[in-house]
């Protein structure tokens, strides 16, 4: 691109260095086309309305959970001796720790609420119908992943309620024939709930499920990008 002015949607860029940098990226990656297609020349259906925003809010809450979760990990220790004490320290001593943990705890509850509202909206408006069947399936997967994140995260402060809710929760699949006790053993990392369980839940909560969830969210969004936002009925 050898031009005086770079036109990017409503922006007219005259700065020579900015134009050189952008041109270099454009020559190598075709950035202009992507930016125009996906941002400046993109149109979305008008009148999307209040009920259409809950998918986006759920996505934002996931990002918020990831950020507050990373901050919590700075102080939290996943051991049965220290877990409870470090969460108490986050609440009482760490600057704004109460806010970070509060946002993480409320965020998990809100995220389930917004996902459920999003789901009801998609159902009532028949948006799951062709060509979007596959994205409904991906969406339900995301609901289940979010419940998995909630279930594993709930144990981490190592409180009475969390401990015993997990005892009951991991006991449930044990009733299944043949595989039941094996599932319970895998979930608990042994016969009893203890350090191995906490370590396991911690790993699943901060690494395994977030990575899987982020990837599946990517799949959800790519499909929306390819299919467009569903217009009015």
């Amino acid at each position: 691109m050898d031009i005086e002015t770079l036109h990017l949607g409503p922006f007219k860029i005259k700065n020579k260095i900015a134009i050189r940098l952008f041109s270099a990226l454009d020559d190598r990656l075709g950035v202009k086309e992507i930016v125009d297609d996906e941002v400046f020349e993109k149109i979305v259906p008008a009148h999307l309305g209040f009920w259409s925003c809950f998918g986006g809010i759920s996505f934002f809450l996931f990002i918020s959970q990831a950020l507050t979760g990373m901050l919590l990990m700075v102080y939290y220790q996943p051991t049965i001796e220290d877990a409870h004490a470090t969460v108490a320290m986050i609440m009482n001593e760490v600057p704004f720790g109460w806010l970070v943990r509060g946002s993480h705890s409320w965020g998990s509850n809100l995220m389930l609420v917004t996902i459920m509202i999003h789901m009801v909206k998609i159902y009532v408006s028949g948006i799951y119908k062709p060509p979007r069947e596959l994205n409904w399936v991906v969406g339900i997967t995301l609901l289940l992943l979010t419940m998995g994140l909630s279930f594993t995260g709930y144990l981490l402060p190592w409180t009475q309620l969390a401990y015993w809710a997990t005892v009951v929760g991991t006991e449930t699949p044990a009733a299944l024939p043949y595989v039941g006790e094996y599932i319970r053993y895998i979930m608990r990392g042994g016969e009893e709930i203890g350090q191995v369980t906490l370590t396991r839940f911690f790993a699943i909560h901060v690494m395994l499920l977030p990575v899987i969830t982020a990837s599946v969210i990517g799949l959800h969004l790519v499909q929306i990008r390819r299919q467009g936002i569903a217009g009015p009925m």
Partner: protein
Amino acid sequence: MAEQTEYSKKKECEVKALPMEEKKRLVREGKAHWFFPGHIIEQIVLCGFVVLILITLSTVFPAHLGEKADPFDTPAHIKPEWYFLAAYYSLRLAEYTDFLGAWAPKIMGIVAQQVAVTILILVPFIDQNVNERRPGKRPIAMALGFLAALTVIVFTILGHLV
């Protein structure tokens, strides 16, 4: 000239390929909005609201930290979080299937949950009414959806009460 497909029925790749003039016309006629800046600003404002809600909730109702876990002290009432209450109650409800045999109470609840999730996943393939999206014209889908939602809500409340 062949009849143009309505904007709302177009595929995204077709929308993307529309000439700029056509896009401007759709926006002028109020059928579409520009993604930038209108839609983006909307999203950012919404995110701001969510942050405000999180801060307000955390301030007014601080996150609770219960007493430390004690494996030797079983509390009187063990309850899951609200989003698992419906599943929890379905397990309790399954205890009434003991007339089928001793195996039933524990397994029926799990099986029922698996069936419910499977049906939920398969909704787009079960619903063969593929072209009608207006809720008013889909009485069966609406009735079944309402029934399912009602069941979840009632189970959640009962799960809280038992």
